[in-house]
C-alpha cells in the first residue's frame, strides 16, 4: 500500500521545524512509521523550504514524488508543489490567502494567522496548523494536548494554555467546515516508536563506540553530527573542539589519538579535501581516526544543503601515498548507528583511517525505529597491555598481522614515537630500502584481517531476479522500494546493498552479482562510481547506472523511470508506485 505523504511548506523562519518536530513526535508516539525528509535552501530567512513526511503502518525507506496532504504556510508553497498534487490531495492553507483552482484537489482553509493573533501572538499559528493537521488525519486531540503541555511546559502555564487553545481552534475549524475533507491513516498498534535522524544515529554510534575527542570545522550538511555530539559531550566526558580549519581539525584528532583516545572528525567534501594530507599522515603514522564525510553535491561549494553521493572515489583515494583504509556507507539511520560503533572499534583495531560516508538525506531525515541496541556491538579495548609488550617498545613493531602493539604517551618506562616519514620499527626516520619495504608490507598485511570485518553486501528481494540493483549509502532506501514495486508488478527484482566499500568485499560481490542479468547501480552521482568500483574490483561490468545528480533524493519512481529508458516501457507499465 502506498503510504500517506504529508508535505509542510513555507519560508525559512516560518516555524516549519517546530510544526514538523511536534507532528513527528505525535505520530511516532501513536505507533506510526515515519520518514521525514527535509528540503532546505541554503538561507536563513525567506525562500521556500519543505519537509516531506511519509506516514505508514510499516517502515518507510524512501520519499515519494507525490503529496497527499500539503500544509502550505505561504502561497508560494502551493505553486512550488502543484505538480505533485493529484486528484484527492488535500491542501491546508490560510483561508486569508485565496488558493488557486487545481483540478480534483481539495482545499481546506483555516484562518491560521487570525486564530493565532486571537490566542495572543502570531507564533501560535504553528499550534493552529498542528491542530488542523490532527483533524485532517483524524487522530484526535488527546496526543496534541499532552505534547503541547510537554513541549511548552518550560515556558509556563500561560504558554501551554495559549498553544492548546490555538491548536483546538485549528482542529475545530476543520471538524466543523471540512468534516469530509480528511485522509485517515491505516490502523496501527499503539506503541511509542523511537524517532531519530542520521546525524543523531552517527553521533550516538560514535559515543557508544568510545569517542573521547571530536574536532571539526562547521560545514553543511555534516554540522548536525558535530552539534549533536557536542550537546552531550560534557555529560559523557568527551572533549569537543571547534578547530580553526579542517586541517587543524584532523591533525588535532591525530594528536589525541596518538595519546590513546578514540577520536573522530566530521566534515563535508571541501573540508575533506583540506584534510587530505592529515589522512595520509594517519595512514603512515598508523593513527586511528574516524572521518565522517557527509557529502554535498557538486564540486567546490556545490549545493551546501542538498543531497548527493559524489565522494566515493574521493574517499577511496584521498591522501597521497598508499595505505589501507576502511570506507563505509550505511544505508539507513539504523545501519549508520551500528556502523559508527564498528568504525570506532575498527580504527582502533587496525590503527588506520575509517571513513563513514553519509549525505544530507541520511543525516537530516527522521525515521522511526523500534530500538537501538547499544550492546549489540562489543566495544573492545585495542591498546596494548604494557606488561605484555616486548622490550624495547617499538611503536611500529613488525608483526605477522601487520598491527603493532599500541601504547599511549605517558606509559611508564616507554618511549612512543609517531612519525610521518617512512620509519623504522621504533618510529625513527629511515631511508633504508629494506626497512621501507618491510614497513610497507607490514601495513598492507592488515588488509587480510580488514576484509573479513563487518559490512559485507546484503541481498534484498528475489533470489533469481530479472533485474538487479546495486546500491551504496542512502540509495538503499529508494532501491528497496523500487525492488518491492517491481516484484509487486511481477518483474522479478533483487538488490545488493554495499555498506563497506573498502576494503571491497570482492568475493561476496561476485557471489551476489556475477551471474545476474541486468545489473544496474543506483547512485546519487553522474559517473556511476559504484559501477566503476565493481568493474575494478570484480571485473563485473554492470549496465547503465541509475543516477541522479540534481541534489534531490533518489526515489523509487526515479529508478523505475530510468529503467524504462534502458529496457523499454513494455513490462514496466504494470508497475504501481
Amino acid at each position: 500500500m502506498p503510504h500517506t505523504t504529508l508535505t509542510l511548506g513555507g519560508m525559512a523562519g516560518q516555524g516549519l521545524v517546530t510544526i514538523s518536530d511536534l507532528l513527528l513526535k505525535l505520530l511516532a508516539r501513536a505507533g506510526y512509521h515515519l520518514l521525514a525528509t527535509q528540503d532546505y535552501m541554503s538561507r536563513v530567512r525567506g525562500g521556500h523550504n519543505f519537509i516531506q513526511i511519509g506516514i505508514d503502518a510499516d517502515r518507510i525507506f524512501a520519499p515519494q514524488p507525490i503529496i497527499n496532504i500539503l500544509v502550505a504556510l505561504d502561497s508560494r508553497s502551493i505553486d512550488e508543489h502543484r505538480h505533485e498534487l493529484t486528484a484527492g490531495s488535500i491542501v491546508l492553507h490560510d483561508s486569508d490567502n485565496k488558493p488557486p483552482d487545481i483540478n480534483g484537489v481539495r482545499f481546506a482553509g483555516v484562518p491560521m494567522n487570525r486564530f493565532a493573533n486571537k490566542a495572543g501572538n502570531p507564533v501560535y499559528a504553528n499550534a493552529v496548523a498542528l491542530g488542523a493537521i490532527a483533524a485532517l488525519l483524524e487522530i484526535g486531540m488527546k496526543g496534541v494536548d499532552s505534547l503541547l503541555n510537554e513541549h511548552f511546559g518550560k515556558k509556563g502555564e500561560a504558554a501551554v494554555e495559549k498553544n492548546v487553545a490555538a491548536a483546538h481552534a485549528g482542529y475545530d475549524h476543520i471538524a466543523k467546515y471540512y468534516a469530509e475533507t480528511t485522509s485517515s491513516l491505516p490502523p496501527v498498534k499503539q506503541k511509542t516508536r523511537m524517532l531519530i535522524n542520521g546525524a543523531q544515529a552517527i553521533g550516538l554510534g560514535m559515543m557508544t563506540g568510545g569517542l573521547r575527542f571530536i574536532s571539526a570545522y562547521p560545514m553543511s550538511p555534516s554540522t548536525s553530527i558535530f552539534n549533536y555530539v557536542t550537546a552531550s559531550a560534557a555529560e559523557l566526558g568527551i572533549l569537543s573542539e571547534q578547530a580553526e580549519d579542517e586541517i587543524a581539525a584532523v591533525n588535532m584528532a591525530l594528536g589525541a589519538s596518538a595519546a590513546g583516545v578514540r577520536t573522530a572528525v566530521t566534515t563535508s567534501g571541501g573540508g575533506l579535501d583540506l584534510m587530505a594530507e592529515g589522512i595520509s599522515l594517519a595512514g603512515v603514522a598508523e593513527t586511528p581516526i574516524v572521518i565522517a564525510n557527509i557529502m554535498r553535491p557538486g564540486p567546490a561549494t556545490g549545493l551546501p544543503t542538498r543531497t548527493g553521493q559524489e565522494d566515493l572515489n574521493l574517499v577511496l583515494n584521498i591522501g597521497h601515498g598508499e595505505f589501507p583504509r576502511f570506507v563505509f556507507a550505511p544505508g539507513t539511520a539504523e545501519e549508520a548507528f551500528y556502523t559508527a560503533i564498528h568504525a570506532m572499534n575498527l580504527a582502533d583495531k587496525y590503527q588506520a583511517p575509517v571513513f563513514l560516508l553519509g549525505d544530507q538525506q541520511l543525516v537530516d531525515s527522521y525515521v522511526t525505529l523500534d530500538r537501538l541496541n547499544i550492546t549489540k556491538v562489543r566495544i573492545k579495548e585495542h591498546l596494548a597491555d604494557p606488561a605484555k609488550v616486548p622490550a624495547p617498545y617499538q611503536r611500529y613493531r613488525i608483526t605477522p598481522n601487520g598491527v603493532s602493539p599500541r601504547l599511549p604517551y605517558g606509559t611508564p618506562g616507554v618511549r612512543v614515537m609517531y612519525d610521518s616519514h617512512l620509519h623504522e620499527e621504533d618510529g625513527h626516520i629511515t631511508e633504508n630500502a629494506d626497512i621501507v619495504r618491510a614497513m610497507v608490507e607490514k601495513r598492507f598485511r592488515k588488509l587480510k584481517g580488514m576484509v573479513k570485518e563487518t559490512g559485507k553486501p546484503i541481498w534484498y528481494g528475489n533470489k533469481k531476479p530479472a533485474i538487479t540493483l546495486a546500491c551504496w549509502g542512502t540509495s538503499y532506501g529508494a532501491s528497496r522500494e523500487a525492488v518491492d514495486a517491481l516484484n509487486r508488478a511481477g518483474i522479478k527484482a533483487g538488490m545488493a546493498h554495499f555498506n563497506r566499500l573498502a576494503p571491497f568485499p570482492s568475493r561476496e560481490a561476485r557471489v551476489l552479482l556475477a551471474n545476474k542479468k541486468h545489473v544496474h547501480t543506483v547512485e546519487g552521482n553522474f559517473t556511476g562510481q559504484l559501477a566503476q568500483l565493481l568493474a575494478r574490483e570484480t571485473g563485473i561490468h554492470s549496465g547503465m547506472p541509475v543516477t541522479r545528480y540534481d541534489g534531490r533524493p533518489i526515489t523509487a519512481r526515479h529508478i523505475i523511470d530510468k529503467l524504462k529508458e534502458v529496457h523499454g516501457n513494455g513490462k514496466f507499465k504494470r508497475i504501481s508506485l
Partner: protein
Amino acid sequence: MGNSNAFHYEGEKAWCPGCGDFAILNAVEKALIHAGKKPEEVLTVSGIGQAAKLPHYLKSNGFNGLHGRALPPAFGAKAANHHLTVIVTSGDGDMYGEGGNHFIHAIRRNIEMTVIVHDNQVYGLTKGQASPTSDKGMKTKLQPEGVILTPFNPLAVAIALDAPFVARSFSKEIDFTADLIEQAMRYGGFALIDVLQPCVSFNKVNTYQWYQQRAYRLGPEHDPTDRAKALAKAFEWDSGIPLGVIYKNPRPGYVATVIGDTEPLLKRKVNTEKINSLLARLY
C-alpha cells in the same frame, strides 16, 4: 651531563656541523633535566623542517607530523592527556608560514604548552628559500632580486594576540635558553620562545656574528607585564635584539579552564547509562 641525561640520544643527527639546532636540542635536554622531568612524561611535537627533526633526537615521546601542522596534534595530545608536558619544536617556515593560521588560533586557544621556534630566517631543509622572517633584501634562488616581502614579526603578533608568555633567545646562549624553556614549561599557558638560530649553510646574512653583534639580554628594568613596552621591544631589530621574556600576561590555560582538575580523557570509559538516557530522549 653524561649518563644522568636520560633524554640524550646517541645516534646520528642529520644537521650540518655548526648548525644552531644542536645548541637548542642541548638547551631542551638541560631544561627537562633541571625541571626533573622523566622521558615518559614529556611529548615533543613537530612539523617538518630541520628544526622539526628534534623529536627524533630526544629520548622521550614524539609526534613528528606534517609540515606546518605541529600545533594541532600538540593540542590534541595535551587535551587527551593533560598530565603530559608538551613541547613543540618548529622552524620559522613551519610555524609562521605553512602553519600561520594554527599559530594565531593556538595562541587564542591557549593550551598549556611550550612552543620553541628555531628561527633561522630561512628554509633550511629545502635548501635556502626565503622564510616569513627573512630580512628584506636577502637573495636566494627564489628571491634572486632579494626578499621584498615585509618580514613577519612573531613576537609582535603574539603580543597583539595577548599570548601569555612571549620570549626570545639566541641558540648560542644555551643556559639562558634552557632557563627560558623551564620558565615556559612552568608557566601554564601557551608559551612562545622564538630562538634565533644561525643556519650556517643557507643564511649568509644572519650569521652567528650578525646575531652576536645585536643581541642583548633584557635587564630588570624591562617590565614584561607592560604590553605597550613589550610591543616596542618586539619591534627592536637592526639596532639591537632584546633576549629574554618580552611579554607576560598570566591567564588560566585551556586545561585549567576547559578540562579542569579531572582525570584525563585517556582514562575515561563509556558511560552506558548516559548513552541510554540519550536514547530515551528520542521517544
